[in-house]
Every structure is written in C-alpha cells, then in structure tokens.
C-alpha cells in the first residue's frame, strides 16, 4: 500500500476577488524532507503557508496532511493535528517570559478536544491530557502535577535549543537572533510533525545565518520533523534544502534539487539574476 505523504497540496488555488495569489499549486512533502520554497517578493509563498495552516481556506483544491484532509479547518485545529509555523515578522508574546512563550504552546493539549477527535478518527494517537481543565485550574485540583510536567517538558526543549538560561527573561528583551530562535522553539513546543519556517534568516548577519543553518538541520534530525522553508537568503536555501520549489506570480515555475534549480533558465530569469550567489 502506498504510504501517504506528510503533506499534499492538490491543485490549490487561492483567489482574492480578481487576484490569483496562488494558482494550481501542486506539491508533496515526504517524511523527513527539508524543502525550500523560494520566489520573488509577492510570489505567493506566505499565502501558501497561510492556506496550509488554515488562516485562509483555498478557493479551489485540497490540503491533505497525512491521512487527514485539513482544507478549511481553523488554525488552532491544524496546530493540534501537527503543523506548526513561524512568522515573517516575529510574533512573539512580547510581554511574557521565554518560558511562558513556550508553555503557551502546550495549552492545546488541555483544550482542543474536537481537533483530537479528528486525530483519533484517522487512527493517530490522541494528544489530549485528561479533561475538565478549566475547573481543575480554578480549584487547583490535580493541576500542579500537570503543570510541573508541562514546565519540565518546556525546560527540556529550551535546553535543546540552548535558551534555558534565559527562561525568565521577557521575550521582547532578547537580542534579535535569539528572538528568532525562540519563535522556532515555541513552534516546536506544539509537538509538530511538519514545521513551516517563514524567512527564518531575515535580518541575520552571516555568523548568525551559519548557526541558523546548523540549527535547522539539527532540529529536523532531533525532533523527527519535515520542514518547509521560505527564504530569500540563497546561502541558506542552497546550503540546507534537499529540494526546492520556485514560485512566481502565484504559480510554480520550477522544482528540483538545488543544482537543477540554480541552472534553470526560467528561475534565473525570474529571480536569481546572474547566479552570482553562493
């Protein structure tokens, strides 16, 4: 029996009035892949992310995550099902500490019962811990052991990404590079199978970019992830992506390995200029 892909976008079209932001988009991601999604500004890359994560419902086509058709499901369902993302402009919870930012990502394990039913219906393992957490939280019955476990798991994650020393710092007080890392850690804390990174290297100097590249490869291996990555920094894309999809004006204009894409005249024409990167 054919094993299903981690993610399948089937003829996805996203139309806003007369503007076709994404048109006839077909893509498959297999387990463990590190794939890059590139293209000029305005090509529709973040729109693809927004369709996958449920912020937009596609005008046409379907989004299939493993065995589950997630087209049109709300974002908080999709996070519970196992897709996490970061944002182009960092959207940390600025007034909360590093630890609290990561703890928030575990709240769905207390509440998202409907999403969990979808998981169970398709034969996946339940992610919900017990029930009645609202009342348990108010009266603090059976609550402290759960919180202790949550904090323990959050700290283990922070240790793996080397942010544990800063756990009590306000997120807004971190240097830029660490804020980006925290955003990724926060996404990881939702326990995803698929991680969508939206321009993680934006605003980084060459040294930070090197570290980020190693970091992404490491978390892919340590956490058993499939990663789809939007980037403009060609060093990152060519350096760590195993496969690349190129978009322009909402459509895919090229696919393939970094070498294939780098030499494709269509891509060079639309985006890479004279190929003097890397």
């Amino acid at each position, binding site marked *: 029996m054919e094993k299903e892909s981690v993610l399948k976008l089937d003829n996805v079209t996203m139309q806003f009035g007369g503007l076709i932001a994404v048109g006839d988009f077909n893509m498959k991601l297999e387990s463990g892949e590190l794939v890059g999604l590139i293209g000029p500004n305005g090509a529709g890359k973040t729109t693809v992310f927004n369709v996958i*994560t449920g*912020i937009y419902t596609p005008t046409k086509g379907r989004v299939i995550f493993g065995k589950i058709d997630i087209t049109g499901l*709300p*974002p*908080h369902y999709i*996070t*519970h099902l196992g897709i*996490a*993302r970061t*944002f182009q402009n960092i*959207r*940390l*919870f*600025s*007034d*909360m500490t590093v630890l*609290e930012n990561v*703890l*928030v*990502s*575990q*709240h*769905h394990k*207390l*509440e*998202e019962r409907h999403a969990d039913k979808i998981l169970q219906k398709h034969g996946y393992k339940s992610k919900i811990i017990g029930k009645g*957490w*609202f009342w348990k*939280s*108010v*009266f*603090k019955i059976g*609550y402290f052991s759960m*919180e202790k476990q*949550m904090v323990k798991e959050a700290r283990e994650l922070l240790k793996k990404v080397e942010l544990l020393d800063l756990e*009590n710092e306000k997120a807004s007080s971190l240097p830029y590079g660490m804020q980006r890392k925290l955003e990724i850690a*926060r*996404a990881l804390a*939702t326990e995803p199978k698929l991680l969508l990174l939206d321009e993680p290297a934006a605003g980084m100097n060459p040294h930070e970019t090197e570290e980020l590249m190693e970091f992404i490869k490491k978390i892919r291996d340590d956490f058993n992830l499939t990663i789809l990555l939007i980037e403009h920094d060609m060093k990152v894309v060519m350096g760590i992506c195993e496969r690349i999809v190129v978009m322009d004006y909402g459509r895919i204009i090229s696919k393939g390995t970094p070498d294939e894409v780098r030499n494709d005249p269509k891509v060079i024409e639309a985006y890479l200029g004279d190929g003097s990167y890397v």
Partner: protein
Amino acid sequence: MQYRKLPTKLKVFLTIIFIIFMAFVLFLSQKFLDTYWIRILTLIGIYGIMAVSLTFINGITGIFSLGHSGFVAIGAYTAALLTMSIEQKQMSFFLKPLIWPLNSIQLDFLSATIIAGIMAAIFAYLIGYPSLRLTGDYLAITTLGFGEIVRILILNMISVTNGPLGLKGLEEYTNIWWAWGWLLVTVLVIGSLVNSSYGRALKAIREDPIAAKAMGINVTKHQLMAFVVGAFFAGISGSLYAHWLTTIDPRPQTVGILLTFNVLIMIVLGGLGSITGAIFGAAAFAILSEWLRIVETPFKIFGIQVPAISGMRLLVLSTIFILVMLTWRRGIMGRSELTWDGIYNFFLRLKRKH
C-alpha cells in the same frame, strides 16, 4: 541581580495569615469606625469586585469592553427583584404590576446574589458569542451599545423593573463582610485562572491573537470564557451595590455609562492587567471621590475665596485622572502584581544598597 523566589508553602502560609489579618482589620473597623467610614470601606470592597472583573476582561485578555455597567445592572435588578418581599413589590409596582413568577418569590441574599451573577453570565454569553469576533474599536462600540441597551430596556420594561420609578427600600444586606467576602472569592477565582495555563492563553491572546491561534489556542472560545467569568462577578457586584445603595434606578450614573467609566478609571489608575492593581485603583477612586468633597465647600486658595460649587469634585477628579494618564500611563502597579516574591526581592534590594 537574580530574582529570588520564596518556597511555595511559605507563600501559601503568608497568604492565609494575610487573609486572617484582613479579617481582623475589618472586624476592628466595624467595631470602632463610624458608620460613614464603614460604608466607604464596604464600597471599596464592591468597587474592588467591579474593577477586578473588568481588568480580567480588558487588561488580561485584551477585550476592549465598555459594557461592564450592563452586567452590573443585570445583577443589581435580578438580585433586588429576588430579595424584595411580596408586599413591597405590590406597593412599589403601582404603575404596572410585576410579572409572574417574580411577584411571588422572595429569596435570601446569598441565593439572590448568586443568581444575579448567573444572569449576567448568561447575557455575556449571548452577546459575546456574536460580538467577540470583532476587534478593537468595533468591539468597544458594540459593548458600549450593549450597556446602553440594558439600561434602556430596564427603563422601559415597567412590568419587570418598575421603569423610571426604580426599586426603593431595599434591605441593606450588604455589610463589610459580604462585600469583602465576595471580593476574596473574586480574587481567588480570577487569580487562580490567571495563574494557570488558561491565564497564559489569555495573555497570549492579548499580545497577539494570530500567533495565539497558530499555537493551538481557540481564541474566540477563550475570549468568551473570560467575558462570561468577568460578567458573572460583575453581576455579583451589582447585587452587592444595589443592597448597599438600598435603591436602584435606570439612571446613567447608577447603572449606566458613567459607572463603566468610573470602573475604567479604577483599573487604569491601578494598572491595566493587574489584579492587585485593580483593588488599589478601586480604593484610590473611592477615597478620592469622598475626600474631594471638601472642594464642594467654600474654601480659600491663594487668597481667592472660592464658593461652594456642586459637582466640583467630579471636575477635580477628572482633572487628576487626565494628569495621571498624561504622565504616568502605567498606573500604580503597571501589569505586575503585588506578590510575596516581589515584596521579598524589594527588601533584598534595599538591604543590598546598605
């Protein structure tokens, strides 16, 4: 310098001692203060409940709600209609008789107060469900409209509320113990929620609803939850307020927009998003409003004789508030709470300087 945390068991112990201490202070006040000051203390308790419940909705969850007076009004009228005796109701409702079953029920104060809270919570669910999908200014206008609609309904549903005549001669059930007792319950419940995963989820919604959704939080459901819990306690405060005033009517200053604005002043003054701040703000507001009565008597300033102008104290209060907003926007507590850890570290820092 590192922020030192006290052991949890010690903090629980200190809190219990504090509650006993407060109970003792209230007991002494009731014995030795004159009626005027006892009434002010009781009012601070009532204002405290209004303030804490509103800061939970506005300051912690970030829901821009301007309709809090609507919930207080619903609570006040529900409780009053339940505690008034049947004869009293027959006498008061002389324009149009009170509808059944209200005209033949009389309940005790505790049950009436709890039912008042539940009624307010039900209304919060009904108007929250469609409204909370709105954001910012639009939500503010909608909730403001709700508050006003409740007042107009009260004014016109004469066979239920006695309309403009209001309800008079209510038993003064609210004493210092009921007010501060319910304040304790409010702080324990809301504080407990805020200090849990739900509190983090609500703060995340305040910071960035889109990111919160992306982290798996059902934003609408959690906002509704905060709205309903806040409204429940606002309803409770309405019942306490009605039985402190001993009369309620549908005027804007009693259960209308002016009440909402007063509570807003309390929570912004105390620090938006802080529970302890809300209580400080409520106390400051109550005390200032009373103390400023001296400006309504004739006084001399810089050699100029100022005559007694009624309403002068509202003018001065508003001016003070505007100055506070211009120069000290975070209020007394800002977003942080007064905690045992905070007090401990404050003294540690002082000791270091010596």
